[in-house]
């Protein structure tokens, strides 16, 4: 028994080393350097000083930080909760429904949504840069002008809705796939029993379909909340946090602080805040999913 387990523990080692080096290590290093005034260049780069919780005090007193937090919440609620979750659920229900009716157009919609998801984030950002372009973007030049409207400065006037839309475009597939998988596990006899009991289609949906999706819905919601919270590339390519800091979410803020202002210590404090928030979500998520298993 003992001998056998030690073999298996050896098997975990290569992966454990990589994870320690690039996950655990950086997290601990962030914790440490957030307590120093480490900088990328200059005298503080060579001789960082221990500054206690100064970085955090500075961070929490910084009005920009609170704007960034608000941006992040708006972005997550808009793109993950309202956008990806609701749209993904609706699409899953429609596609599942269409599949039962034998309507093949559902497969086209499924493929289109999937295609947007599998392409690299940078491509998504770039495509929407072009879509939103003031003078020549497809939205203004093709769509609005054909309807007889003048051009709209999408990114300038509605920066946050613009990045949210781009992220919905890219991220909806995940929830859709998860819900489609869950729908397929609902035993059909439930529906047959309900039909015999005289329940109409709407009642069957409301009483049986939705409740059986609830546990997976909670997990999907938490999962996309976490991944949306960490969104970086799409926003960076589209607006880079601008105009001003209108779309500066927390990941961009950490990046800009560290690599534009060169203050690693301060940037690490932001990273630690991010990790802490994410950790809280993750613990809830894991405990819920354990309760299910």
């Amino acid at each position, binding site marked *: *028994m*003992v*001998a056998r387990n030690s073999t298996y523990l050896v098997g975990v080692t290569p992966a454990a080393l990589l994870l320690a080096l690039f996950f655990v290590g950086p997290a601990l290093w962030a914790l440490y350097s957030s307590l120093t005034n480490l900088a990328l260049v200059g005298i503080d780069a060579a001789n960082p000083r221990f500054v206690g919780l100064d970085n955090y005090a500075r961070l929490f007193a910084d009005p920009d930080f609170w704007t960034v937090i608000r941006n992040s919440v708006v972005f997550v609620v808009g793109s993950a909760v309202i956008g990806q979750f609701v749209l993904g659920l609706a699409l899953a229900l429609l596609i599942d429904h269409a599949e039962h009716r034998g309507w093949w157009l559902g497969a086209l919609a499924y493929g289109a949504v999937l295609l947007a998801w599998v392409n690299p984030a940078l491509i998504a950002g770039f495509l929407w840069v072009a879509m939103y372009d003031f003078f020549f973007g497809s939205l203004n030049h093709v769509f609005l002008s054909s309807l007889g409207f003048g051009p709209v400065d999408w990114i300038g006037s509605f920066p946050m809705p613009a990045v949210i839309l781009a992220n919905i475009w890219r991220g909806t597939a995940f929830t859709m796939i998860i819900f489609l998988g869950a729908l397929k596990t609902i035993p059909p006899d439930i529906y047959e029993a309900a039909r015999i009991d005289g329940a109409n289609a709407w009642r069957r949906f409301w009483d049986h379909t939705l409740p059986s999706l609830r546990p997976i819905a909670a997990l999907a919601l938490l999962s996309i909340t976490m991944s949306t919270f960490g969104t970086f590339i799409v926003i960076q390519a589209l607006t880079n946090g601008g105009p001003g800091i209108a779309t500066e979410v927390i990941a961009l803020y950490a990046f800009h602080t560290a690599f534009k202002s060169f203050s690693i210590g301060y940037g690490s404090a932001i990273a630690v805040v991010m990790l802490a928030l994410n950790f809280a979500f993750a613990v809830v998520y894991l405990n819920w999913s354990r309760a299910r298993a």
Partner: protein
Amino acid sequence: MSRVEYADVSKRFPTQDRAAVDRLTLDVADGEFLVLLGPSGCGKTTALRMLAGLEHPDRGDILIDGASVIRLEPKDRDVALVFQSYALYPHMSVRDNIQYPLRVRQLSAAERGRKVERVAELLGIVNLLPRRPAQLSGGEQQRVALARAIVREPRVFLMDEPLSNLDAKLRTHTRTELKALQQQLGVTTIFVTHDQAEAMTMSDRIAVLERASRWRVARAHRRLAPRRAARGRRRRRPQGRAAA
């Protein structure tokens, strides 16, 4: 052609509070066909797996030909096990399944071919050699599993309820056949079953498991008596269920 000894062997799984095997002492003579009989979940499979090296005893010793094997890895014990589920390698043809242990021992291709042919003929499965396990019936799979155990000429055969997945008619037929085969090969065999009729017809001796701690060993045709064994089983049933 080997003698097997269990000397005061005990084993308890961390997740269970009752010992799976408690102070088992048992001698199996060279060339003998010994049946371990008992209800499911009573530790007879564990006893077998300890001999194979798939489980480690907590205490006691297991010897083959007088030498302790408990420190040896399964691969170094030179025993063959026919699993209840046969454990055929699904990605290999029947031929590759049977010659796998020979390839491990780095026999030449010609020699492997000769041995595989001989065993396949013995078991009447020559026509199955090019097929995949998934294309075989239960009875055919069982034969392939047997062939894979026989071909390497091990010191001991271990069989873990190898007939339990066959239908009733085939099972009765295979019993006699298997027994004849064992007599022909003369390899020490330990056979686990919960079927008394099976035990009675096949064994030289039967070891009956009453409790984890109490084993009775008898000549098959002495009156170890189906009746008494059955009584013992009835008494034990609630516990056995709980363990399973």
